[in-house]
Each structure stands twice: as structure tokens, then as C-alpha cells.
């Protein structure tokens, strides 16, 4: 009996949230672009999960691509290598399949860590203000003074060429945006009556931030983060293309193209001789990013409270 009343209480409390969620799902269903976006992302998720079956690992580390000899000249698609090979004879099919895992990994790790740092620093600087706020804002200003890819490029060159350098550089470039949005949200929530009330009854700062401010301010940042994955993967691919990726044997889409960089222009008589070395991995990058951006574009309209119900 007691349980049931608790359940009812919970249901009542959650009713507006459930109502809004249902509305959101309905809007998503009505938007063909977001459905295509979701389908693309699910397709890539399936590739990532099924990677060991689709392309059985040969090396101990599955991210190390197998290579068929050492020949410098890329070989076009054949029955043995259905997407052909890159310069150095790395199998493009294998690289594309396992590269999907790399793409998800880069996207989730970079966005996850940037989000964590951003939420932490943003809420502290928004809540306390003063000198902490000033220092953080000036620091983000400095990072904002550079175009992201160029700062990331300089950082990777300084840290040394590796996947970890790429991840670190992308986090360093990425967190300020989250911190600023979070700060803005916290500043808004800080002035509400319920935060005043919590302060008046003597709640600790920690409790106010965790229990009252965070749950009410984190959603815009979370949405932003989920939509940022495509952009992060695009920047990482550009870094790989510039030769600042994880190294020539590592299964990564940008890296595959970079491996054949001396051949992508083809031969003098046939500029399209090595089309497979860049067209196929590029198609993976483009489709993956497109999936996230389609979802993002639809989400911006659906989740923006000012135009949501138009």
C-alpha cells in the first residue's frame, strides 16, 4: 500500500517531464531529417559493435591494421581487399570498420572530458563569481583567440604525434565552450527563489550546486555536447589528414587517407588511378558527421523552448 502511494507520488512528480518527453519524441518522429540522422548513427553503432565479426582482427591490438606486404603503391579494390589497400598495403575495409570504433571513441572521449571540465569549472565560476570567474573567463578568451583546428594542430605538434595528443589537444580546445554555456546557465538559476530559499535554510554550497543548480542548468550543455560529436570527429579527421594522427598502422578514417597522401592525386595519365584511397574513407567520415549534424539541426528546433511549440 505504502509502495503504491509512493509510486503515485513519483508519477505525479514526473508527469510534466514525461509529458515533455512524449512531446519531444513526437516531434522527432515528425522530422524526417532527424530520423535519417538517427538511422545513420545507429548504422555506424552497428558497425562498431560488429567490428570483430565484420573484420576479424589479425594483430593482437585490433586497432593495428593488417597489411599485405610493404608495397608503396596503393592497390585498387579486388576480391581479396574489397575496398583496396592504401600505400603500405593496409586494408581499407579493415581500417574503415575499426575506424568506426575510433571515431566513436574520439567523439565520446573528447566530448565527455570537455563536458566534465566545462561543467565543473563553469558551475564553480558562475556560482562563486569574483576572481575565480574572472580568471576562468580570461583563460577561455585566450583559447577563443585561436581557430580550434589551428590551436589543436600546434598543440599536437608540441605534444608529439599520437592519438593521445590528438585527444588532449581537442579537449583543451573544446572545454571553454561548455564552461561558458554552463556558467551562463548557473548565473540564471542562481537568482531563482528556490536557490535563495535553499541558502536561507542553511544548505551548504556543495548541496546547492549538486541538488538545486546542476539538475536545472545542465540540459542545454548536455544537448550541446551530444551534437558536438560530429564536429569533433571532423576536426580529428583533419588532423589525421595533415599527418598528425595516430600513426600509419592505426585504424582511423583520416589516417587511411593520410597514408596514401603521395598517391591521392593519381598518376599523370590518370588522375583517378587511386580514387579508392580517399573516396571510401572520406565517405565514412562524411556520412558519420552528417548523421550527427542532421540530428543536431532537428534537435535545435525541437528542444529550443522558444520555438518548440510553433
Amino acid at each position, binding site marked *: 500500500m505504502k509502495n503504491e502511494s509512493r509510486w503515485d507520488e513519483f508519477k505525479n512528480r514526473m508527469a510534466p517531464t514525461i509529458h515533455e518527453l512524449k512531446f519531444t519524441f513526437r516531434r522527432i518522429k515528425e522530422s524526417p*531529417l532527424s530520423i535519417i540522422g538517427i538511422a545513420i548513427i545507429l548504422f555506424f553503432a552497428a558497425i562498431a559493435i560488429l567490428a570483430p565479426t565484420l573484420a576479424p582482427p589479425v594483430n593482437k591490438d585490433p586497432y593495428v591494421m593488417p597489411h599485405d606486404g610493404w608495397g608503396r603503391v596503393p592497390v585498387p579494390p579486388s576480391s581479396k581487399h574489397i575496398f583496396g589497400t592504401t600505400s603500405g598495403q593496409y586494408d581499407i575495409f579493415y581500417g574503415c570498420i575499426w575506424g568506426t570504433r575510433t571515431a566513436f571513441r574520439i567523439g565520446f572521449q573528447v566530448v565527455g572530458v570537455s563536458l566534465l571540465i566545462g561543467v565543473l569549472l563553469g558551475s564553480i565560476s558562475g556560482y562563486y563569481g569574483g576572481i575565480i570567474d574572472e580568471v576562468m573567463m*580570461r583563460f577561455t*578568451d*585566450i*583559447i577563443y*583567440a*585561436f*581557430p*580550434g*583546428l*589551428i*590551436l589543436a*594542430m*600546434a*598543440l*599536437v*605538434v*608540441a*605534444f*608529439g*604525434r599520437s592519438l593521445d595528443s590528438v585527444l588532449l589537444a581537442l579537449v583543451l580546445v573544446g572545454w571553454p565552450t561548455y564552461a561558458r554555456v554552463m556558467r551562463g546557465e548557473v548565473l540564471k538559476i542562481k537568482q531563482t527563489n528556490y536557490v535563495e530559499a535553499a541558502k536561507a535554510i542553511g544548505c551548504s554550497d556543495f548541496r546547492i550546486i549538486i541538488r538545486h543548480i546542476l539538475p536545472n542548468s545542465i540540459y542545454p550543455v548536455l544537448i550541446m555536447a551530444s551534437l558536438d560529436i*560530429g564536429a569533433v570527429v*571532423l576536426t580529428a*579527421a*583533419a588532423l589525421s*589528414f*595533415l*599527418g*598528425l594522427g595516430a600513426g600509419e598502422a592505426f585504424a582511423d578514417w*583520416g589516417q587511411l*587517407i593520410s597514408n596514401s597522401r603521395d598517391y*591521392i*592525386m*593519381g598518376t599523370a595519365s*590518370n*588522375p*583517378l588511378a587511386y*580514387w579508392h584511397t*580517399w*573516396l571510401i574513407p*572520406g565517405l565514412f*567520415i*562524411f556520412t558519420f*558527421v*552528417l548523421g550527427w*549534424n*542532421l540530428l543536431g*539541426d532537428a534537435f535545435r528546433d525541437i528542444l529550443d523552448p522558444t520555438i518548440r511549440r510553433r
Partner: protein
Amino acid sequence: MGMKAYVMRRVLLFIPTLLGVTLLIFAVLQIFTPEERASAYIMGTPKDPSVIYRVIEKYHLNDPIPLQYYYWLTRALSGDLGIARSAGNIPVSVALLQGIPATLELVMFSIPSIAILGIYLGVKSAVNRDKAPDHIIRIFSIIGWSLPTFWSALILIAIFYGGLNWVSIGRLSNEAYAVVTSSNFIRYTRMNTIDGLLNGQLWITIDALEHLVLPVVNLTIVSVALIVRVMRSSMLEELSKGYVLTAKAKGLSNDVVINKHVKRNALIPVITVTGVLTAGLLTGVVITETVFNYKGIGYFAAHAALQMDIPSVLGFALFVGLVYSLANLIVDITYAYIDPRIRLE
């Protein structure tokens, strides 16, 4: 606040930004030991280790950090950024200066192309909201937004250079290059389109323009979506305002309302994103120039990065940081000039 006071304040705020930009690059340099940093100022590999110690001494690379920053900053601002190994052992600042005209030429042709197409598509999209043109334009801008810059460049090359055998990559054809580098061709600006005209050799200008088309198209494809998006939402906002109804009520045609009233006001927010557009272009040129073998500063930076040429890449980043900050300063002042509400805040 008057316009003068606003400009003064904004320019003064530029000083801490400059210090910040240089501090960040300086901080990145601190990853390296004084010996490693010294090698940036030496041509080739010295046989005698005492050379390195002399450089450390001369450039104050072992001093306390604040002093080091002071010496580094004065050197960097006077143009001494070290030696660019990846560009044939010339000073980094010289390599940058050599690349600027080519990049400037590319950007100069890209900006109007991006602005005109972006504004046109943004207006078209907003005026036809939720109708077919709007959907098509939105889908195309999402596609442009998602294209890897290097991949779209490669596709353009495959179609127009590979398939249609149109023009070769690079800045000029071989014949034009031979003329441009010959002694009786004066390179006033080092921008081939302009130099061709100044030397009275129209075919050089045409040759340079032909080689500019594909890089400009590529930069436009990957950057135009930003302008389309901002112009569209700005138009939609203006269209819902009272004065539009008034203008229509007094009997003006739809075209007049849109062109004479709405479009003008909707353009204001587009100016604010010019800063972001600059960042996109600065990034875009690194990739585009590399793929099109177009020798500007982006090409230089990409090749330096490939060879892990640290002084060149950091020198380039410093230069880009300064240019970008300056662009933002100009955007802010222009914005305040056009929209008085900004400077009253």
C-alpha cells in the same frame, strides 16, 4: 557611451588579448627543454654542442620564466620566430611573409563568394519557410557543414581536373609560372591576378583566376552554411516584427518589403559572424591550400606540421591568433558603428 569611447575601450581590451595569445604560445614552448628550443634558432644540426649553449645564453632560454617571456616576446614581435626547417631553412617570419599574398588572394576571392551566396540562400530559405526551397537549402547547408574540407577538395579535383581535364592544381600553369618568375615581370603585390594586370599581361591574370576557381569553390562549400544559417534565422526574426506588417498594410509589394526593409535589418547579425567566418577561412586555407598545392601560409603550416617543424607551426599559430583577434576587434567596432544599441550597453 559615444562611439569614440567605445572604440577606445575596445582597443584597450585588445591589449590583454594580445598578451594572452602570446602567453599561450610561450607556454606551449615551455614543454621543450632550453636545448630543444635553442635548436629552433640554429640552421641545420650543429657539430659543436657549445653552439647550442651560446644560443641559450644569447636568447636567454635559461632565465627565470617572466624574463624569458619578456625576451621571447620582444624577439617574436620584431619578427624573430626561429628557423623554418620545413621551408628550406629560411626564417619562419620570412616564410610567413612569402605566403601571405597567395593566401590573401585566395581569401579575397572567397569572402565575396561566401557572403553573396550565403545571404542569397539565407533570404530565399527564410522567405519560403517550410516550403521546398527552404528544405533543399537547409539540407545542402547541413551537407556542406558535414563535408571534410580535404575530401570536398579531392572530389572537386577528381571531377574538374581528373574528369574534365580543366586546369591543373597549383597557383599558375607552368608557362605562366615561367613568365611570373622571369626577371622582366615585376611582382608588385605577389598576387598573380593583380600583378598580371599591373604588368599589362592579361593572360597571367586569367591563368591565375582559373587556378583560383576550385579552391574558392571549396572554401565556399565548407563555409557558406554558417552565413546561410545566421541569415535565415535573422530574416525569420525580422519578418515577425511589427514594421513588416505596417509596410505590407500600406500596400507595399512583398519584394519591396523584403528588399528595402527586412533584408537590411537582417544583415546586422551576419556581421557578427564574420569573426567566426574568419576562423573558418583561416582553418580552411590550411587544408584547401595543401590539397590544391597552392603555396600560401596554410600550405606552409601543413607541411611544417607534417615534418614536426615546431617553430614554424607555433609561429603560424601565433600569427593566426593575432590576425583572428584583430579581425574580431574590427568586427566589434563595425558592429557598434552600424548598431548603436551595442555601444550603449
